[in-house]
């Protein structure tokens, strides 16, 4: 990725100036926004959102949608937490069990939406509800007292960075590599733009989104397990409630179109950062509770406005296309 900030890049990612403006504003208002502890805190808190927003974004680019992530997150947290607290499960066991739970939910969603062809919105709204019920049924009481092994998942430092951040970076890099470097990456866009044309071009139009449902389920459950490890406790009734909306918001604010076929991972990472910084800044400034909600709502509207402006700004900064060749006049 070329990191230089060109006008064209700014036009494409209008969140960049907004994030910079927010950072400056919050720093001026509080004097404690910029600072390694606070910034690292934002990164750690946003890591779970990023881990789920990234595969979700690929799913949306391919023209599908997974709303069930909030409950899959809870299921992953419950699965890992249960093994850790009731059976002294270690790091590997807990993570594997959480991934398995996530893959199971992903497989159900993927089967119904990609193979059978049901509406992803209704199906995953259904699994959102059903999986939450299941998670609560499995662990009606809070799970606590995890062993050190599992605590490592969320608490370790790798090269000075908290492990959730490291995992999020890995997820972004892997997904980014798939999207940019492999043929499947192009297939994801192609399916999102025109499923029919992709099918006629020999693209696996069922398998690819199915795999993305699996990845989204696995990542959601992993995120739940990570948060359980960080917090040292799981409550099945509240873990990840509303998370699906946060994920979708990050994806859409990051410039991925709900209609599929367009968007970039860089944009999604910006979307996650935007939400994390907003939440942090409002608390830092000490905005009263209800006004925080109002501000968060308005921020979404502003983000929608930016998404609207972006292609228009891009057109202005566009490199002029070469003029078409003029046929030589005959007469």
């Amino acid at each position: 990725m070329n990191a230089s900030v060109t006008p064209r890049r700014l036009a494409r990612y209008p969140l960049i100036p907004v994030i910079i403006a927010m950072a400056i504003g919050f720093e001026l208002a509080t004097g404690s926004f910029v600072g390694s502890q606070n910034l690292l805190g934002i990164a750690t808190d946003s890591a779970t959102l990023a881990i789920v927003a990234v595969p979700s974004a690929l799913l949306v680019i391919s023209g599908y949608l997974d709303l069930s992530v909030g409950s899959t997150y809870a299921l992953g947290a419950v699965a890992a937490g249960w093994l850790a607290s009731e059976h002294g499960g270690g790091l590997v066991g807990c993570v594997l069990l959480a991934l398995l739970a996530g893959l199971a939910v992903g497989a159900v969603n993927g089967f119904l939406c990609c193979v059978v062809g049901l509406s992803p919105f209704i199906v995953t709204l259904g699994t959102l509800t059903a999986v939450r019920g299941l998670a609560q049924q499995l662990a009606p009481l809070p799970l606590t007292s995890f062993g050190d092994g599992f605590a490592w998942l969320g608490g370790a430092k790798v090269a000075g960075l908290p492990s959730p951040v490291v995992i999020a970076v890995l997820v972004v890099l892997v997904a980014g590599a798939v999207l940019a470097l492999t043929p499947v990456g192009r297939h994801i866009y192609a399916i999102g733009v025109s499923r029919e044309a992709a099918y006629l071009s020999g693209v696996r139009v069922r398998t690819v989104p199915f795999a993305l449902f699996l990845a989204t389920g696995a990542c959601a459950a992993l995120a739940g397990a990570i948060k359980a490890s960080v917090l040292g406790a799981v409550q099945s009734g509240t873990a990840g409630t509303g998370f699906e909306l946060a994920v979708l918001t990050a994806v859409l604010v990051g410039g991925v179109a709900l209609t599929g076929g367009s968007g970039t991972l860089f944009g999604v990472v910006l979307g996650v950062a935007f939400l994390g910084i907003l939440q942090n800044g409002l608390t830092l400034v000490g905005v009263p509770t209800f006004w925080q909600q109002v501000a968060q709502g308005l921020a979404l509207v502003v983000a929608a406005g930016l998404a609207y402006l972006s292609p228009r700004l891009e057109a202005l900064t566009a490199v002029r296309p070469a003029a078409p060749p003029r046929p030589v006049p005959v007469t």
Partner: protein
Amino acid sequence: MTLQVTGLRKSFGGVHALRGVDLTIASGEVHALLGHNGAGKSTLIKALGGAFTPDGGTIEVAGRSYSGLSPRQSIDAGIAIIFQHLSLVESLSVVDNVFLGQEHRRLGVVDRGSQRAAARALLDRLGATCRVDDRVGDLPMGQRQLVEIAKALSRDPVVLVLDEPTAALSSHEIGALERTVRALQEQGLAICYVTHLLGEVERLADRMTVLRDGQVHVSTSLEGRTRRDIIEAIAEPPTDLPPRGPVHEADPPQLQVSGLSGPGIGPIDLSVRPGEIVGLYGLIGSGRTRTLEMLFGRRPRDGVVTVGGRRVTRATPRAALAAGLALVPGDRAGQGLFSSLSALDNALLPAQGVLSAFGLRRRRAEQQAFERLAEALAVHPSTPEAPARSFSGGNQQKLLLGRWVNGILPTTVLLLDEPTQGVDVRARHEIYRVVRTIASERRTAVVFASTDPEEIVALADRALVMQEGRVVGELAGAALDEDALLHAVHQSESDLQEHLS
């Protein structure tokens, strides 16, 4: 003057689609608006219909001058437009579409009875066979086009604009349309007619205006003009087509089909040798598209399909592609193009997997493949990263052709559905050239479907005439000419003449 356009300008971002166009159409005149793909014809027409506001210039209709029109103003001024990309609403019925935005009302409520009667009368006049309550989305393209025309006529226009109205019509329907245009001309309408089919220009038009790159190149009466004059006005004259490649009787057939059948189709037997180009000719709805789609595995099928001696058992596009079959679909927008993806992605999507190493794409190899392809097919512009939607129709079609004939994929049988629909005369010629070259040099077997007898004659070694899902006749060699084709599908030559006159 009923319609007078003066100095009209419009640009999209950096693209100057119209650079000061003048156009004058008198009442009672059929005026052909011609030009290469991307010349600006549709842009001019959209400005008339109010799809956007022009950057400059004026539009004068029936004595009133506008610097820009909204769709409602345009309709109220008496301009009726048949847009190139249909402006129909698929999930609504025929009658609802005809009167959309101009409903007959009684006490604020839609007057269905009166609308149905009026729609029926219009459709009858156009020779349409659909019923007023049919869902437009269920209709074949030809009938949809007629509904679109009925919608335009329902508004009692003073100016009628038709943007490639016959691209999807069969000769039968074209005949009815041409008669209608004549009748309207006699009633004193000013008619602007856009087409790439020069036969229509010769039969119908009184004057022509030719656009090139957003400017008027020629505007003249057609009196005493030959086809060659018209072609030269539109673009530089095409070079001759490369010669037909030899077809060796001794070669085993590349594509062998026996007992192919499906709903409303077949049984069809067919055999195409390497290097042979077979044209499927028929009226709209005769089953050519369905036959090609069944061959390609897009529709379920019965029967045996053999490619290069090996049977293709599974009826899926993937199985067909693996066997060496490839299809360029007729519905370019809906089934072919990835409009927002780059030209490179469009041309090389299925080849990227072959070009990749260790599961990773090789950008350089892709770039080179694209360059080769752009050169071989004369794709313009040859910028790999431009989105496909920014290409003209002819160049889009070349990208789709290139998707299968790029020397990377093992395509040995190429299926083409309406390969030059909406493509200008020059690009059409280039596509013929490409197809010929593929057949003669790569020994690819080609099967293409077309509604234009000129095209069948120009391109095919052998033509199969289809009717109701079956092959009802075969023409080859000297016997293959336009008259014979028309003859084969129409009751008699005189009947056809009656249609056309």
